[in-house]
């Protein structure tokens, strides 16, 4: 009888102890209670006031019990399901998924490598490439198409990425009206609003303005998500040393306070609605003022968010697979690996921004493919090394004995695919055969595969009916914008 057996089926990473998480939690509660948040929305202010917050003009000071109630009522598991319902994100505790980020104004042209304005065709290609990457679990627009009406760019994006990709969607919304249209489009594919609520197919990136300001537009989108059961974040894009303290703990406490304040509004609007906790905390580079997407501090902050999510038992938002480099070079590779690997260690459930170059300004199809490979390595690593009588293979070792070989054995044949990760793009050829193959570095290899994919995929995955309905919804919105003569924002 074996007793007290403890098995590690992967690493047990912990940056902070539970005591430290608790200290952060109390600090965030104090910020919400003492300083409060500015809320530029009448309905949200009323919800807060009626539930016991101290509201003066548009500053709401939120007592701890309200925050703790919201933490309790938020679901501990959130799902986002693809149009192919087998592709489902089950966001809870240590279940980590990777996907893209949204809205990059510049894009790397797949043919010329030139960095230029993003167009809608790029977003369509994002769908094609992402569909081909089995280690990218969810999709977002990656680019911000400049060649369509910006007041409804999110609708074009959703249609375009869904054209060739049936994975779960992550998106921003231009405003509440546009969000309603995104919901309408998704209800078409889901077969109704109740179906969409039970099985949401997309989630929305909503955010406060650091420090401690909630804009009207963003709060309305947050509340609409709650109302329709569409998963939403309220992840502060706080920048240490610029919009938050340079000391990382203080910046996290502030970012967390901003997030929790949003959670309170969200849960007051509709208790039990799906929420994704996040702090997309970066640092400002003190030489260039750029808000870095891959600094070691950024990575630690996200690891703490993962822990915080388990502390609250609420799914979390992560960031990874992104780089400050403007091209797919050695730096991009290093940062893609570092950010995605630590996202896995930190256990952030919905890890977005794969495919991001140029510190959040440049999209790249090849970066998606590189991240796909990075994630393959990580997934293998996280399955760890299994030890049991079968994997120890003592009989085989004895049978082969001294000086034999293993390559031709049935045991090898039966196990190698499971045990070994087969790289998709990384080079393992030795120099002479690599040279005979054209001496291609990995970025060149990937660039060529990208072209193969975008040229070979033709048939849309959306049905003719869906396309027609999507176009109708987009058309209605277009007409409405024209009639109302809405300004750009």
């Amino acid at each position, binding site marked *: 009888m074996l007793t007290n057996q403890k098995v590690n089926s992967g690493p047990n990473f912990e940056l902070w102890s539970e005591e430290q998480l608790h200290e952060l939690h109390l600090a965030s509660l104090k910020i919400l209670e003492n300083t409060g948040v500015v809320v530029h929305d009448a309905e949200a202010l009323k919800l807060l006031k009626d539930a016991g917050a101290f509201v003066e003009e548009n500053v709401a000071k939120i007592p701890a019990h309200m925050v703790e109630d919201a933490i309790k009522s938020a679901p501990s598991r959130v799902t986002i399901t693809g149009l192919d319902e087998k592709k489902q994100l089950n966001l809870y505790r240590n279940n980590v998924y990777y996907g893209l980020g949204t809205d990059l*104004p*510049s894009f790397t042209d797949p043919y010329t490598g030139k960095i230029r304005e993003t167009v809608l065709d790029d977003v369509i290609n994002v769908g094609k490439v992402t569909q081909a990457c089995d280690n990218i679990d969810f999709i977002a627009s990656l680019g*911000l198409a*400049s060649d369509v009406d*910006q*007041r409804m760019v999110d609708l074009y994006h959703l249609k375009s990425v869904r054209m060739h990709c049936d994975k779960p969607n992550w998106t921003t919304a*231009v405003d509440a009206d546009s969000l309603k249209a995104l919901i309408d489009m998704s209800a078409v594919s889901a077969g109704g609003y109740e179906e969409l609520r039970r099985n949401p197919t997309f989630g929305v990136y909503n955010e406060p*303005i650091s420090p401690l300001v909630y*804009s009207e537009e963003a709060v309305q989108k947050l509340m609409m998500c709650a109302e329709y059961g569409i998963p939403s974040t309220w992840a502060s894009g706080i*920048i240490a*040393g*610029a*919009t938050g303290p*340079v000391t990382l703990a203080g910046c996290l406490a502030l970012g967390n306070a901003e997030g929790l304040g949003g959670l309170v509004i969200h849960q007051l609007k509709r208790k039990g609605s799906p929420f994704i906790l996040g702090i997309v905390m970066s640092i*400002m580079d*003190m*030489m*260039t*003022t*750029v808000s870095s997407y891959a600094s070691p501090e950024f990575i630690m902050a996200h690891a703490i968010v993962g822990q915080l999510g388990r502390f609250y038992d609420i799914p979390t938002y992560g960031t990874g697979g992104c780089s400050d480099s403007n091209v797919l070079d050695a730096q991009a590779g290093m940062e893609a690996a570092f950010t995605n690997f630590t996202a896995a260690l930190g256990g952030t459930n919905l890890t977005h921004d794969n495919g991001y170059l140029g510190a959040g*300004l440049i999209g790249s199809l090849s970066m998606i493919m590189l991240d796909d490979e990075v994630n393959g390595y990580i997934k293998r690593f996280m399955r760890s090394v299994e030890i049991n009588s079968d994997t120890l293979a003592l009989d085989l070792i004895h049978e082969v004995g001294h000086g034999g070989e293993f390559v031709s054995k049935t045991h090898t044949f039966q196990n190698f695919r499971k045990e070994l990760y087969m790289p998709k793009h990384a080079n393992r050829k030795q120099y002479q055969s690599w040279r005979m193959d054209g001496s291609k570095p990995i970025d060149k290899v990937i660039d060529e595969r990208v072209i193969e994919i975008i040229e070979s995929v033709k048939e849309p995955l959306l049905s003719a009916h869906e396309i027609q309905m999507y176009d109708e919804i987009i058309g209605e919105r277009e007409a409405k914008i024209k009639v109302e003569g809405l*300004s*750009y*924002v």
Partner: protein
Amino acid sequence: MSLFGNEIKEAIISLDIASVGQLTNKALADGVKPKQILDDGLLIGMAVVGERFKRSEMFVPEVLMAAKAMTEGLNIIKPLLAGEDAKGKGTVVLGTVKGDLHDIGKRIVAMMFEGAGFDVIDLGYDVKPEEFVSKVKETNACIVGMSAMLTTTMMQMKITVDALKEAGLYDKVGVMVGGAPLTVEYAEGIGAKYSPDAQVAVEVANNIVQ
């Protein structure tokens, strides 16, 4: 260079705010001309800081602290400067354009401009074209700077430039623009000068007023 000037310069470089004030008062008491304190002490100190920033020996928070130190001295001598000297480098009107809530980049630019000796009026964010125009008119500004971080708000810059033209102010004021989605080409297209960051912005502004 004069002894007091050197001391004030050193105090700025070592980010010693209190000493800059004390040394400035002392120099005045010793009969040194305000204009001389400005040129030989305060501005030279900031110029050295600017150089070190460029060489990555000093960083943004240190540059902003040096700017504070300089302002400490400047505030003391400002009322004493006469005629042409009192004008300083001129007034800059700054703001983030209509519909855009991104703020921190423009704030950093504002602080850097102050450090470079400009008078800065920061109109905040979500600033309408007519607000830029009326402030430029009211203050006789030499530069107007606009920030936009969204492709949806970028065209507010062109609208503002057009409004400046309409008001007959465009030829009297240097128009500067910045923000993540902008390009040199876009800026040139609307008749404005582009800066990718606050450091370059100071150089561009200095060129405009020279």
